């Protein structure tokens, strides 16, 4: 038996299954890939278990020359100790730290834009229809992309949730209610946000999750007409299980 090989299979398999069972895979990847990832975890555990318990077959092994780039008989060799230390690194992080979705640090680093979704093809077919209360932040951003005139939004009811984000470009007394849009995994997450004008000027804490209900209005700010949500309520909420939009 080669203990390192068994550890590679069992360690990586167990981590994927653990993240699946804990419901945290959606912090890292698009939900489309969650089931294939869990299956991968099960296969890795199975491969590790086979290495651990199946009897070694002595026949013919000695006759097989080691292929180039490999350490000979794979049932005896396996990764070097250096490779094992590298392989252990993500497992230490994955098991040792609490899973956490991307937050305001990445939003600040990537820059929250109102219309960053340059490659969303359906934007040109999207129009704000008569029942927009169910629209997500991404739907609204898509709508603004399709029709950049802020006047077309006036009076439309809004009900969205997201985290609070502010930077120097956001006027005083305003904040953005923001989410990340994920195509594939956290590495491509794009932060998007809708501007909200806090009714009494009190802005919730940066990074806090809130539900915002209100209507769109247009206001003059910094020399331009901007659409902004005039909220009827801004309610603190718990972070949703699926914090990203897809």
């Amino acid at each position, binding site marked *: 038996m080669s203990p390192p090989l068994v550890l590679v299979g069992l360690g990586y398999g167990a981590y994927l299954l653990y993240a699946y069972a804990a419901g945290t895979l959606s912090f890292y990847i698009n939900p489309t890939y969650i089931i294939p990832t869990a299956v991968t975890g099960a296969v890795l555990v199975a491969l590790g278990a086979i290495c651990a318990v199946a009897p070694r077959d002595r*026949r013919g092994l000695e006759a097989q020359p080691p*292929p180039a780039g490999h*350490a000979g008989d794979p049932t005896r060799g396996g990764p070097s100790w250096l490779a094992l230390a590298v*392989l252990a690194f993500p497992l230490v992080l994955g098991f040792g730290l609490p899973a956490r979705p991307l937050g305001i*640090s*990445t939003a600040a680093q990537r820059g929250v834009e109102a219309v960053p979704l340059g490659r*969303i093809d359906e934007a040109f077919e999207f129009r704000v229809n008569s029942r927009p209360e169910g629209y997500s932040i991404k739907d609204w951003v898509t709508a603004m992309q399709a029709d950049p005139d802020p006047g077309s939004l006036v009076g439309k009811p809004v009900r969205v949730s997201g985290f609070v984000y502010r930077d120097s470009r956001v006027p005083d007394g305003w904040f953005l209610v923001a989410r990340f849009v994920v195509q594939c*995994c*956290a590495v*491509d997450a794009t932060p998007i946000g809708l501007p909200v004008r806090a009714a009494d000027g009190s802005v919730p804490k940066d990074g806090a999750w809130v539900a915002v209900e209100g209507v769109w209005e247009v206001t003059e700010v910094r020399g331009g007409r901007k659409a902004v949500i005039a909220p009827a309520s801004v309610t603190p909420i718990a972070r949703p299980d699926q914090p990203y939009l897809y």
Partner: protein
Amino acid sequence: MNWLGRAQDGVTIFLGILIEAIPFLLLGVLVSQALALALRGDRGLSWLPRGRLGSLLSLTGLGMLFPVCECGNVPVARRLVTRGVPVAGAMVFLLSAPALNPVVALSSYAAFRDNPAMVAYRLGFTFLIALGVGLVLSFHPHPDELLRHRGRPPAPVEATSPTPAGALRRFAAAALSEFGEMAAVLVVGGAVAALTQMLVPRGVLLGLGQGPVLSVVVMMAFAVVLSVCSTVDAFVALAYASTFSDGSLAAFLVYGPMIDIKSILLMLTVFSPKAVVLVTLLVTEAAFLVGVGLNYLGR
């Protein structure tokens, strides 16, 4: 600056790259191991055409059966040479197989779903460059000089048939060994990608990534240094999709599987240093032209 929040987000991005990539890595390893078993001995090679172009074309397509990256393909290339396949054909296989296979097409599409032209660039230019290099080598007057050892290496001695339980164990161990080897490189590549995303200001990345020539040079150098397995390198490239030009990303995806530190070392186990230098130069020039050309055409 909130360093704790930044570090936590860095961990999320790093684990995101790994979790997204591991299913594709394992799929590639399992299929490659199964096919390596199926193609033991002379089986599977008798159909190869003998003509220059036909042989090269069919060896370019052979990668469709071996969805693994460089390290898994070198033993197969060595086997091709021992079975009498021309040296140029073995090199064509080695250059094309890591990228020109279904698992890489699938993972590249998963990463670049919103920009599928990238998948077409990757497969199309890999095919053309591998075939072009093969044609150049096929006109070499003394092909044996391209091999590390003059004359052909001896054919490997085949193992006798193992028992079913032993065969299953060998399969599992070989798959995990290959998985561990490639996952270790992926961990390093994922860490570098996550660190650059978290530490390098977006303005600096945009400055490097938007120049039509500089961006291609940077991404090609990045591919050589990172040496990430081709089945999952698209997820690393994705980290730069919003800051680097399309041409530079295409150059990374085409060049990385053909030429990187790992593949050069592995190539040297079969081919002569002169042949490896020649191929490295040809592929580098071609990938550079592809990247820069796409950048100028896309303007």
